[in-house]
């Protein structure tokens, strides 16, 4: 009688599963009960104001920090007790500073990649061959220069290259494009798309660049006040905030702007009232920026609902 269930991506066990995560420094709770899931092949962006705990969260997931409370599973294992085979499946993009200053990018990629040789699997060649990787991140021109002479942008490309050299199933990036110019940023976004398309890499990245979140994310999580206050695609989040659609038009040469809760109804009425004479009609939905600021503001004002705003369930 019952039709066989077709497994959907949502039914697969999450790659990252966090419940009730708390992190306390002294008497201050940086994380105050974070719940989050990241599913296979998803690109999830963690957004939040400075000091919201984005870096803390990602470092706990990387196994570099012990949480005060809560359960954390990454690729099915608690990162604190994970073994080296787990490390081989996880990529971490670090912000380089002055490490390996006298090495060249080619030597460093070659060196760090060689640790992954014993961890190659069927269908997952490890590591990515050095030349291929240098091409992928666009470091051809600087591959044999000493690292200390690289520009900031080149250095970040090297950081990304080192993070993905083991062809990770799951990649963590903490503010990967901080300090990038628009061109470098665009190229980086293309690189992330290529990674997820080719290898099905799951990506969790933090940023406070909303444009970046919008371009990359399958799903955006907003972290504020130590909790996830919103969870959904950029569109879903924008739709969530009512009263922010903006309608502009001109009538008899005069410009009008109106913030409408229900833009469709408003426009219908507007056109009905003025069958002729409405020009340059423009409806602008709330941008992710509006949404983000609204969510963070309402949360900081304390009138936010404490349960995370889940949008996935409403839409699907």
């Amino acid at each position: 009688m019952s039709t066989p269930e077709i497994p959907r991506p949502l039914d697969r066990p999450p790659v990252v599963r966090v419940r009730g995560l708390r992190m306390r420094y002294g008497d201050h709770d940086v994380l105050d009960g974070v719940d989050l899931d990241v599913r296979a092949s998803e690109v999830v962006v963690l957004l939040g104001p400075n000091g919201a705990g984005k870096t803390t969260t990602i470092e706990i997931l990387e196994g570099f920090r012990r949480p005060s409370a809560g359960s954390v599973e990454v690729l099915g294992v608690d990162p604190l007790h994970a073994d080296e085979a787990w490390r081989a499946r996880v990529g971490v993009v670090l912000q380089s500073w002055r490490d390996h200053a006298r090495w060249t990018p080619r030597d460093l990629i070659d060196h760090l990649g060689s640790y992954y040789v014993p961890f190659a699997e069927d269908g997952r060649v490890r590591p990515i061959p050095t030349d291929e990787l240098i091409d992928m991140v666009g470091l051809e021109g600087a591959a044999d220069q000493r690292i200390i002479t690289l520009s900031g942008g080149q250095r970040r490309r090297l950081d990304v290259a080192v993070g993905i050299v083991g062809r990770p199933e799951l990649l963590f990036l903490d503010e990967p494009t901080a300090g990038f110019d628009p061109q470098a940023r665009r190229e980086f976004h293309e690189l992330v798309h290529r990674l997820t398309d080719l290898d099905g890499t799951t990506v969790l990245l933090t940023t406070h660049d909303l444009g970046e979140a919008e371009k990359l994310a399958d799903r955006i999580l907003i972290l504020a006040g130590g909790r996830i206050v919103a969870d959904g695609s950029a569109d879903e989040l924008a739709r969530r905030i009512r009263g922010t659609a903006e309608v502009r038009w001109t009538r008899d040469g005069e410009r009008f702007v109106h913030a409408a809760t229900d833009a469709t109804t408003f426009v219908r009425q507007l056109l009905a009232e003025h069958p002729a004479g409405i020009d340059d009609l423009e409806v602008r939905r709330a941008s992710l920026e509006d949404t983000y600021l609204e969510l963070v503001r309402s949360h900081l004002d304390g009138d936010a609902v404490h349960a995370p705003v889940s949008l996935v369930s409403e839409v699907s």
Partner: protein
Amino acid sequence: MSARINAARINAARIGVRRGWHEFVIGLRSPQDQTFYLSMGFGALALLWFNRDEALPGTTLTLPQVALPSLLAGIVMFSIVIGPAYALALEREDGTLLRSRVAPYGLHGYLVGVGTLTVVSLLPLLVIVLGGSAVLFDGAVPGDPGRWGLIVIALLLGILANLPLGFAIGALVPRIQQVTTWGMLPIVGLAWISGIFGDMTRLWDWVQILAQVFPMYWLAHLMRYAFLPEAAVTNELYGVWRLGPGIAVLAAWVVVGSALATLLVRRMARRQSGAAVAEARDQAATQYVR
């Protein structure tokens, strides 16, 4: 699965040796490192040269003959302890350690790399001092293969016994600046009480006993045993050569020191994260501004 883990460990150790060698080669090409090797090596030779005519009272031995083995022991001890101490303190702040830790068995490889670099960096110094002494001072460097066998054994044991000390200091010091306080000063003090710079038989009893707890004294003692004629024993503590006890103490340091250093280094590595590196970077930046 365990075969695979073993393979990965061996792979990482091999990568670590290559890493250490690569860093050594990079260093050889840098004027900074060249200056270090040349000034240390030729400085030691100059010290011996200016005292070449000084004979030791009651013997036919000259000062270069007597001082060379102790000086070599001092060079080994100093390089082997200070090398890893500085490397660990510096490279956990600048992110080198963290970068390696992200790779599977990367910490393993990193540590082997530091050890390899430390040991290989000794070679230019030993070559300059030993080669120079052979040319400059008659009878200072033995030619007999039996004695050379002993020299190699003493050097290997001395290196392995002192290496964990360097790792332990590097893991314990809170910041790079403290390596001088917690690394350099104790080493110089230890060299002093271990008879590297001169006669230790005139020191207080309790200082002599303290010196015999550490590998430094025993390395120097074994080196003198290998380099000097039998009769030089009159300058040794208690007037006897103690080959067996020397090897035993050094071997004990190899075993106990390695276990202790492993614990300390693991503890240190666990505390590293991107945020810790960023913090060190910010601190360095503010210091620079000041």
